[in-house]
């Protein structure tokens, strides 16, 4: 067998071009295609888990690019029963300690002189007393009082993700801010960066959302529920429809309509965080 210099160089060049071309093609593939393979793996793992679980544990058909989640809190309806706080803890394995909450309810009392008293006994999980003891102690009278349910704002411009040194907290294509608790190093920068106090560091012992202590946890809009077509647990149990979840990609969704037509407000709009949690009936001092 004889190989000419021309043939050697030609064949070698073609082989190199082929390899380079193949690599270029893999680079051009959208990351979704790589993720789709991973999704297949996850779905297979989910099916294995589903065999021993009464409920489906994976949503293989869910497309995060086809949804845009938003939340509407109607403070004119909230009765401060605290069922949402209780349901959130049960659903997400949030620590029992009242200092750790993914959602909580505050009572805002505007006193006659304009000062605002904010109380949230145990995060509101057991409801509220007929009148906050602080109000009786100060001798002031209330000119206005209402309950304000709180949760992560799922900001479109989130300060928390910017400060994370290991990119453990991030934004999903459907608008939810999540924390990778296996990657989180528990430095707490995001806890400080959040202007809404929505984050906490999971204490060891007791209930832990992913069984991992020392990492940051926060509201996920019940990501495991909304990706299965279910409402978040707090929305499911709210007896007065003060909490609603909606999809901004669905033009007929009542929450989307309410937000689009500007009948809602957000907390601390001056910070430019662009919250996805909108409120009805909050005053300027709420935040």
């Amino acid at each position, binding site marked *: 067998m004889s190989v000419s210099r021309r043939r050697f160089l030609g064949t070698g060049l073609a082989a190199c071009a082929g390899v380079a071309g193949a690599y270029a093609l893999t680079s051009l593939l959208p990351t979704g295609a790589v993720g789709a393979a991973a999704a297949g793996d996850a779905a297979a793992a989910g099916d294995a888990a589903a065999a021993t679980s009464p409920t489906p544990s994976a949503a293989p058909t869910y497309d995060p690019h086809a949804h845009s989640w938003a939340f509407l809190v109607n403070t004119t309806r909230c009765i401060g029963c605290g069922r949402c706080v209780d349901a959130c803890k049960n659903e997400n394995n949030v620590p029992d300690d009242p200092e750790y909450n993914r959602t909580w309810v505050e009572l805002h009392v505007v006193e006659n002189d304009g000062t605002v008293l904010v109380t949230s006994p145990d995060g509101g999980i057991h409801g509220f007393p007929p009148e906050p003891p602080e109000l009786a102690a100060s001798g002031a009278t209330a000119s206005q009082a209402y309950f304000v349910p709180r949760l992560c704002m799922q900001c479109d411009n989130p300060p928390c993700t910017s400060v994370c040194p290991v990119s453990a907290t991030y934004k999903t294509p459907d608008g939810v801010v999540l924390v990778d608790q296996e990657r989180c190093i528990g430095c707490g920068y995001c806890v400080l960066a959040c202007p809404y106090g929505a984050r906490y560091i999971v204490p060891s012992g007791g209930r832990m959302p992913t069984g991992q202590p020392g990492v940051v946890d926060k509201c996920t809009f019940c990501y495991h529920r909304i990706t*299965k077509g279910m409402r978040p647990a707090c929305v499911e149990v709210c007896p007065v429809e003060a909490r609603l979840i909606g999809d901004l990609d669905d033009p007929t969704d009542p929450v989307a309509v309410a937000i689009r037509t500007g009948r809602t407000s957000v907390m601390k709009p001056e910070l430019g965080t662009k919250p996805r949690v909108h409120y009805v009936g909050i005053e300027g001092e709420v935040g």
Partner: protein
Amino acid sequence: MSRIRSILHRAGARIGRPSSPLGSVKYAGVAIGLAILLVAALAVGAVAAATFYDQYGAHQERNAQAWAALTPQYAAASSECAQCHATEYGKWAGSRHIAVSCQTCHGPLAEHVATAPVPESAAAIDAAEAGAAPAPSLAAGVAVVPPTDALCTVCHQKILGRPADFPQVDRAIHYAGTSCLQCHDVHTAIAVPPPIITHSLVNVPECTACHGTTATNGVKAMPAGHQPSVDAICLSCHKPKGDVSSPGPIQTQVP
């Protein structure tokens, strides 16, 4: 290393004599070997590059899928409860409490389903719920919150901050010491007070605070011929059945 050098040396030595059949074979072997090495290096590099540069996006996508794969505890809708509890569900479905999910009061369904014994029949469930038969499910430790007054008052106690149009009562003067369930059916949300409501006579306000000259909050007014008076006068005729200081409900009666 010396082997490679010798191979290269021999290959270089053959370049000047391409017509030699033996030299061509060796030359081709070296070329193919180098090409395979190049392809392998590129392939390894491509795989490494794909996982390294995509890492920040890929780990987040995997993590989002891990969150999505968690198992819900609360059922998607109250209709799931109707599979076993059709009678109570039917009452609730047509009531003012329709906006209140079963799980708002009774807690998450998943644990209940996991621990509840398989019911014998719908009739057995109805009987147990009506109190006519012992509930086997409760004996088995099923995680369902039984109805208590605290569950009523967590929403319906009159407190500061509650919207004015929401139905609420002050339990201190609304049949204090009496169970809500004595008058109210929680599933229909209809109050059907019995002719005589038993209530404690301790830790309650003056009789006339509730039993005034007009009926308020559904509390029976004093008869037309009565004059508002102090408790001692009322109790001289409306004798308590039993010890007035006992915390339990005491029925009053006219001798």
